């Protein structure tokens, strides 16, 4: 090759490279003003596609976050987590025995295809959700379990078009007899037993209490929500296109009946699996928001970096979410539970002191610093129920959240003077959550340093871990709960006690006492202050028996561009898209 041709090649390479860089580059203006931008398109990433947008079977956080913008229920949680009317014109009239709820519906509600919403739609949607809970195996069908006839509807096994036929024919096998419609705009709900949690349960965002349109559903019973033409709801947004596992688009519904009227006209979601990649794209201006759609668990390193970047720090919102992480002991020793250990209730005061020693030996505040950098979680010192929710005991109110290594050591010495009881213990955790491994290592070091007890660590994959844990296979294990709705009932009857199946079915600790069972039953039937007082007594019962060691409350990390107005979050869900505006920038 001659020198001339080589120079030409070199120039060509440089030229092509420069062209590619220029072609790939974008523009990212940053100025803001208070005027609305001409383009009201909201863009944000999801870290995985949603599971389903069918309210009858939706159970993932992402499903609910997205579908809250497409569907409505008769009542809902507002941004402050109060139950307020949604398509109901007012809060229901409740009978004095708390067994009958009468809902009056608004007359102006329509589905996005123009179909008017009447009481028949409520009946169809709730019966459908109840009927699907059995055959489809759904998590939230039981939100309707208090309604008379739920047991019948949920035990049917029909699926797909066959179930649709039964529903349209009002077949008794799929219809809850306690659900009636005296007229087009009144729904009467007869409960089988008083349930103080009923309104909270049917307010659960994007879930079984939401309304679907029979005319859309019957076109494809199982997959109607996948097709933009039939993904019909009453919400302010409708799906316009979807490429599974790649992207999905929504548009505002013109002349939507509710308020506030949506300003955002289009919503574009990309499915990007890597959180750091999504954050980088946000920082480049590719997204307006990060953390929406149930993906506020940003990597700690990214959050710390953004906190340290003056130009981005103000875009970061750290907000308490609804998950408490704690440690569970095995508290029952019987033939059906593999785990035995020194912490069981039949060990009496000695076992109690051992549990308390293990609890007091952990510095929860240091745990939040070491594991979460005081960013993505905070020390759990106010009881089982996460800070900000009904039933939270108050900062520092949980004695199990205290750190007292001297007392811990003293208790251990009294309960296990030879060290034989605490020999060979293993703490089991699932490493799928990146916080769980450092938490396990922190616990191990605290017990070693403050008690002189060596505890082995064992990592088990998530679903296998949960399966074994609920069977009672572990003496010490990572535990926790993410609340479904803002009601303390969601923290007690499904985690401990005979009603759940304890000691031998779906019960991590095995914990159940007659007093606990009786009080759970009573509290679940009560409403208002009476219920709250009893739920707090239940909290105290768990504390007195040292059933758990509180570790931390999770926080979510969100990023909002300065030109995005009205976006935010409460402990449970994102603020709806309808309240968001894009300012010119």
């Amino acid at each position, binding site marked *: *090759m001659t020198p001339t041709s080589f120079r030409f090649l070199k120039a060509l390479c440089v030229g092509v490279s420069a062209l590619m860089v220029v072609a790939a580059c*974008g523009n*990212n203006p940053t100025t803001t003003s208070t005027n609305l931008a001409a383009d009201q398109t909201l863009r944000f*990433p999801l870290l995985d596609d949603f599971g389903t947008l069918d309210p009858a079977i939706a*159970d993932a956080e992402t499903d609910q976050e997205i579908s809250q913008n497409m569907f409505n229920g008769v009542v809902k949680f507002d941004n402050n987590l109060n139950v307020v009317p949604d398509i109901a014109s007012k809060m229901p009239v409740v009978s004095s025995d708390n067994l009958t709820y009468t809902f009056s519906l608004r007359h102006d509600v329509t589905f996005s295809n123009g179909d008017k919403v009447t009481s028949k739609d409520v009946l169809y949607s709730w019966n459908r959700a109840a009927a699907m809970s059995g055959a489809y195996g*759904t998590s939230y069908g039981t939100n309707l379990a208090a309604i008379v006839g739920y047991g019948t509807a949920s035990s049917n096994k029909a699926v797909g078009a066959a179930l649709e036929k039964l529903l349209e024919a009002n077949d008794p096998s799929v219809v809850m007899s306690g659900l009636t419609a005296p007229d087009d705009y009144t729904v009467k709900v007869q409960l089988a037993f008083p349930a103080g949690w009923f309104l909270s349960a049917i307010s659960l965002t994007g879930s079984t209490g939401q309304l679907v349109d029979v005319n859309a559903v019957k076109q494809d019973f199982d997959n109607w929500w996948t097709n933009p033409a039939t993904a019909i709801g009453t919400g302010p947004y409708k799906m316009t296109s979807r490429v599974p596992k790649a992207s999905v688009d929504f548009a505002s519904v013109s002349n939507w009946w509710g308020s506030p009227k949506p300003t955002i006209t289009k919503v574009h979601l990309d499915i990007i699996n890597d959180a750091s*990649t999504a954050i980088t794209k946000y920082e480049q201006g590719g997204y307006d928001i990060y953390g929406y759609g149930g993906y506020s668990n940003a990597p700690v390193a990214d959050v710390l970096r953004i906190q340290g970047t003056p130009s981005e720090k103000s875009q970061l919102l750290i907000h308490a979410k609804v998950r408490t992480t704690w440690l569970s002991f095995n508290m029952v020793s019987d033939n059906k539970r593999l785990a035995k250990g020194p912490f069981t209730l039949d060990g009496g005061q000695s076992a109690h002191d051992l549990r308390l020693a293990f609890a007091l030996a952990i510095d929860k505040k240091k745990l939040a610093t070491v594991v979460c950098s005081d960013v993505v979680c905070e020390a759990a010192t106010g009881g089982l129920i996460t800070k900000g929710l009904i039933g939270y005991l108050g900062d520092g109110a949980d004695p199990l959240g205290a750190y007292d290594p001297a007392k811990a050591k003293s208790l251990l010495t009294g309960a296990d003077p030879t060290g034989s009881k605490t020999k060979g213990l293993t703490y089991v955790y699932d490493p799928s959550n990146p916080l769980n491994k450092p938490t396990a290592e922190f616990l191990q070091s605290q017990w070693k340093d403050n008690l002189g007890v060596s505890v082995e660590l064992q990592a088990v994959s998530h679903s296998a871990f949960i399966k074994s844990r609920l069977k009672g296979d572990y003496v010490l294990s990572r535990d926790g709960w993410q609340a479904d709705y803002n009601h303390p009932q969601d923290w007690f009857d499904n985690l401990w006690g005979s009603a759940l199946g304890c000691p031998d079915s779906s019960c991590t600790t095995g914990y159940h006492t007659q007093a606990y069972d009786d009080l759970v039953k009573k509290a679940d039937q009560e409403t208002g202050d009476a219920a709250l007082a009893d739920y707090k007594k239940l909290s105290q019962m768990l504390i007195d028996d040292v059933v758990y060691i509180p570790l931390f409350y999770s926080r979510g990390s969100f990023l909002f561009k300065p030109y995005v107005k009205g976006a935010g979050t409460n402990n449970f869900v994102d603020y709806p898209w309808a309240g968001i505006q894009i300012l010119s920038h």
Partner: protein
Amino acid sequence: MLTRGTLIYISQRLVLIVFTVLAVSSAVFLGIHRLPGDALFNEHLHGVEYQNILHHYGLDLPLWQQYTNFLSGMFLHGDLGEPFVNRGVKIAPLVLREATVSAEVGLFALLFTVGLGMLLGVVAAVRQNTWVDYVLSTTSVIGYSMPSFVIATFLLLFFAIWLDNVTQGGFYFQIGWTGTYGTIGEIWLPAFALGFPYASIVARLTRASMLEVIRQDYIRTARAKGLRETVIMVRHALRNALIPVITILGPLVIGIITGGVIIENIFGIPGLGKEFATSILNRDYNIVIGVFTMYAALIGIANLGVDLLYVVIDPRIRY
């Protein structure tokens, strides 16, 4: 070119690919069902509800029955089922679409691998023992010493973050794709990251091969005949130097296909590689099987394509 022998050869290979796909999908089917845990069991869904959903998906059937259902679905209906995590999505069209996305990235990466690799190799050979040769050879060593995900990270740091900061958002590489398929502006960097390590291998191979060829008598004869240097290099030297390169193209193509798993996750590309990672993490049996099946088919077809290239490059080769 498509002689009867070649057609028979292609048919035999296609049959072999079908058997390979069957073997891979069966092995994955049986293997993944032995893994602890599944996609459905969680803190909110257990007990009776869990049993109900197992029944709904036929996961409570004996394994042999699930396997025969799977086989009949795949071969009789081309149906790989639906994911457990993302309902309402048919796996066969999903992985097919994702495979085409990955193929797009892979083809661009292959362009870099072959185009850039050969260019660097030829230039290094022609300028042997000059600073140009040293620079290119060093670059090649660096290229094949670093895994593609390390290169991708450095490229992202430079083009997506540093350039964005330095130019105050004026010029930078916009990470992620805006549509199902990528534009040139979106694809060049991931393709480069994926292809560069292999381009380095091709460069070294091309250089060695070229150095051997340009010392041959027929090259000297061509020069003596007064042919232009460009013609000698391209028509006489490069074509003969290509054969060893084509030989390693098969493994390189497989490397590019499998390398896409990491690159697609780093760059947020909605391809088969991204699916591979998420489906395994989700324990989503059906989609894991679908992804592996598609990979097996892709690799089989890519290898067949490379083998057919021999015929084009070297007229002496006949099937």
